[in-house]
């Protein structure tokens, strides 16, 4: 255990500053200089160029405000793609247009009403595709890129629209879609780029290194502010949706065929998503949103090894604030067995940090 004043998470800080520095390099370029040489422009262009070919334009059924177009993200070379569940998939046929302008038929393999996701197969092989990344490394303030076919302005082999923004926070939605409640209650990613436009849902959210970290959601209106809200599902939800398919029901589709990246070694994907053991028991009583006090620490558990004690208040995980027991639990669901997390703890008057390495759930 070390003192927090050492500065937690200095690796992230450096990465953040390096990104700023990279952007700086682009701006410093003098007028008239060849900007193709600027490293930042290259980093961003490289991310865009790498991801664009994996975005397929989809055309299907549409009625009035349900637009008959959207996009999907190819996740395997043999044509598996994920997209947002929408009416366009429910017609007699779905037409997919690949990045090079080729037109093919798409078939729907599986639907997920809760997450509003669908898995489709596009005819073709050796297709460019994206690997599923991880969203938990995104920090508020990180630049993000989003892609989709806004107002179906791109057709044939034309590149879809790319927008850039800044990641704001991970939260839950309280939203409506038209007159109906939007039921999805899991985590979503919010950012300042405007993606709540027709044709964007199902497109990829990328970090500035071009990693696939989320899938753009449908057009919704916030219950609290009555304004349109742009959001993305964390890519972990996509991964969980794909993993469910391997446990029996529906299409032989196949999370195992799907390449994944992130820090977790391959094959561990299925173990992610709430299947860690820490040995921490949190206070559950009292107010509706109690602060994340540790009630008990199991002996010889990962928490005990990290030096956690009863009555510690857990303030933050990897620098991201945990405002309540519920919030901390949701964060825990994204922990990976064997991968260290840095906890910021209040004990008495002291602020401390502890590195905890969770075990796999028994």
């Amino acid at each position, binding site marked *: 255990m070390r003192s*927090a004043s050492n*500065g*937690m*998470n*200095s690796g*992230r*800080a450096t990465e*953040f*500053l*390096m990104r*700023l*520095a990279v*952007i*700086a*390099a*682009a*701006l*410093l*370029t*003098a*007028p*008239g*200089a060849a*900007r193709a040489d600027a490293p930042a*422009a290259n980093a*961003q*262009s490289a991310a*865009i*160029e790498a991801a*664009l070919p994996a975005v397929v334009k989809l055309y299907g059924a549409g009625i009035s*405000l349900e637009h008959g177009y959207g996009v999907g993200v190819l996740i395997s070379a043999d044509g598996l793609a994920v997209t947002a569940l929408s009416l366009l998939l429910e017609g007699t046929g779905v037409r997919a247009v690949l990045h090079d*302008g*080729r037109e093919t038929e798409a078939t729907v393999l599986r639907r997920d009403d809760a997450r509003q996701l669908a898995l489709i197969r596009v005819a073709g092989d050796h297709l460019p595709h994206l690997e599923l990344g991880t969203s938990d490394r995104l920090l508020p303030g990180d630049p993000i*890129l989003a892609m989709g076919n*806004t*107002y179906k*302005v*791109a*057709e*044939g*082999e*034309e*590149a*879809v*629209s*790319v*927008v*850039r923004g800044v990641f704001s926070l991970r939260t839950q939605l309280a939203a409506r879609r038209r007159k109906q409640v939007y039921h999805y209650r899991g985590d979503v990613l919010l950012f300042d*780029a*405007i*993606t*709540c*436009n*027709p044709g964007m849902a199902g497109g990829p959210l990328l970090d500035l290194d071009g990693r696939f970290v989320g899938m753009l959601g449908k057009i919704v209106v916030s219950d609290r502010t009555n304004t*349109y809200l742009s959001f993305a599902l964390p890519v972990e939800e996509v991964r969980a949706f794909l993993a469910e398919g391997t446990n029996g029901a529906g299409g032989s589709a196949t999370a195992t065929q799907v390449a994944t990246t992130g820090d977790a070694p391959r094959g561990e994907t299925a173990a992610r998503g709430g299947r860690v053991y820490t040995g921490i028991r949190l206070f559950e009583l009292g107010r509706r949103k109690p602060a994340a006090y540790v009630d008990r620490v199991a002996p010889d558990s990962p928490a005990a090894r990290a030096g956690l004690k009863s009555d510690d208040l857990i303030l933050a995980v990897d620098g991201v604030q945990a405002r309540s027991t519920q919030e901390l639990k949701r964060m825990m669901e994204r922990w990976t067995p064997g991968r260290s997390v840095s906890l910021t703890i209040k004990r008495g008057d002291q602020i401390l940090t502890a590195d905890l390495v969770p075990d796999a759930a028994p």
Partner: protein
Amino acid sequence: MADSPQFEGFTATPAQLEMVRAAESTRVDLVRQLAPTVVCIFPPGNRNGGGSGVLIDAEGHGLTNYHVIASLGEPRRGEGGCSDGVAYPLEVLGFDPAGDIAMFRLTSASSLPFAPLGDSAAVRLGDESLAMGNPFLLAEDFQPTVTFGIISGLHRYLAGQDRSLFYTDCLEINTSINPGNSGGPLFDMGGRLIGINGRIGIEERGRVNVGVGYAVSMRQIRRFIPALRAGLVTPHATLGATVMDAALHRVAVEQILESSDAWRAGLREGDRLNSLDGVALRSANQLASLVAAYPAYWPVTVEIERGAEKRTLHFQLDDLPLPRAPRMPRDIPEQMQKKMIKPLSGINWDANALETRRTFDRWLAAVGGREAAASIGGWKRFARRAAPAAPGDRAEAAAIESAETAPPPGWDRDARGLDDDALEAAVRLSLLNPPAEPRRAEWQVLRGDEVGGRLAIVLSRVVQPRRDVEVTFDFESGELLRIAFQSAGEGGPRRYEYGDVRAAGALRLPHRRVCFVDHALKHEERIERYELRTRD
């Protein structure tokens, strides 16, 4: 934060912080430098509506959207507020309803700051951009609003309405633009003008930014600038043929008008179109989007494939009809009609006369000065003439010698006695002494053009009876590039193209002259020397 290397508990190295600060101040400096080039456009004495514009030269010429100035009507006056807080008188020059572009000029005693023109063809997807203008007319002091974002899409096509406001081969941006931004500049991060912001995606929303904006590309606007300056209304181009996707990435001619120049050049039904001005053609829609961004009559180079044969064709694009001019509503009491704004009519003849004069000024500077030119009364040319298969090819050359004299005043009222070569000589020599105040019945700017990749301006020289001559100058340098007219003998088009400009006595004259009859090369002359004769 500026004083402390701490950043929410993170530490940065001094070098990293230095880079970030330098980037910030570069951007701030860029905005400070560009803001004075932005214009807030209003109707005269009225702040209830308006748009934006950007100055592109020291004479006060600026670009905006057609839809911004269309409501100004006749007599084409408005106000242009600059960041110095002054609202300068604004006059509308030429406009381009189909491309949604218009040119204006601010009247100012001092020279105004202006933005350098950039190259939208070099813009890449994801590049950063700055938009400036007057969204929601917030700039009471004419200090423009600045927004920052990226290029979201390239080569977009957005249909217009009633033959106007088509955005073809345009830029899509997520840089925030709103009502009032119309006509304002889109800059790259080198501070160069790459587009004019004009349109936003608003489906299902109010008229506000939804993260999807469109800018007319500078590549398109550049071709229209000569005509816009000259106060002309320029129609857009069409191929004169319909095209189809014969297969994936295979564009072919479906039907072609026999009256089109493309037909004249040899384009036929079924021909595969491989490229247009060096841009590889991949779909019929792409070709339609590209062609619509050209002005009518613009010269293009098209590579085609017919069976196993590959050919390169050069021809002029056809013209699309202009949108119907807005008309006064009928059945309105005369009293009210007087109060209503008169819709914009066609050509601004004052601007046309000014541009004619400017062209002469440039031409005289290029040829060696007004006085030196006016002193010449004729010349003797010693040349070697050849008739190669293509310009520049080797062929047997014969020595020729010809003496030409400046025509007497009033020659242009009856040129019946002149053959083609004599008419060319008369026009060239009379150009050495152009009128100081050209009259519209004598000279006018006809259109912009491109000759050998150089932006050009075409003037029409009225010669009676019905032998009008088109004289083309380089738009920047004023160099004489071409003289064209209908042949007296053969009846078809005849044109002379000039090059290799070098000193000849007191003047700088072309030492290559190529003659075409009916678009076919007739002969090419290499002029060895001129013997200049002063005016008597």
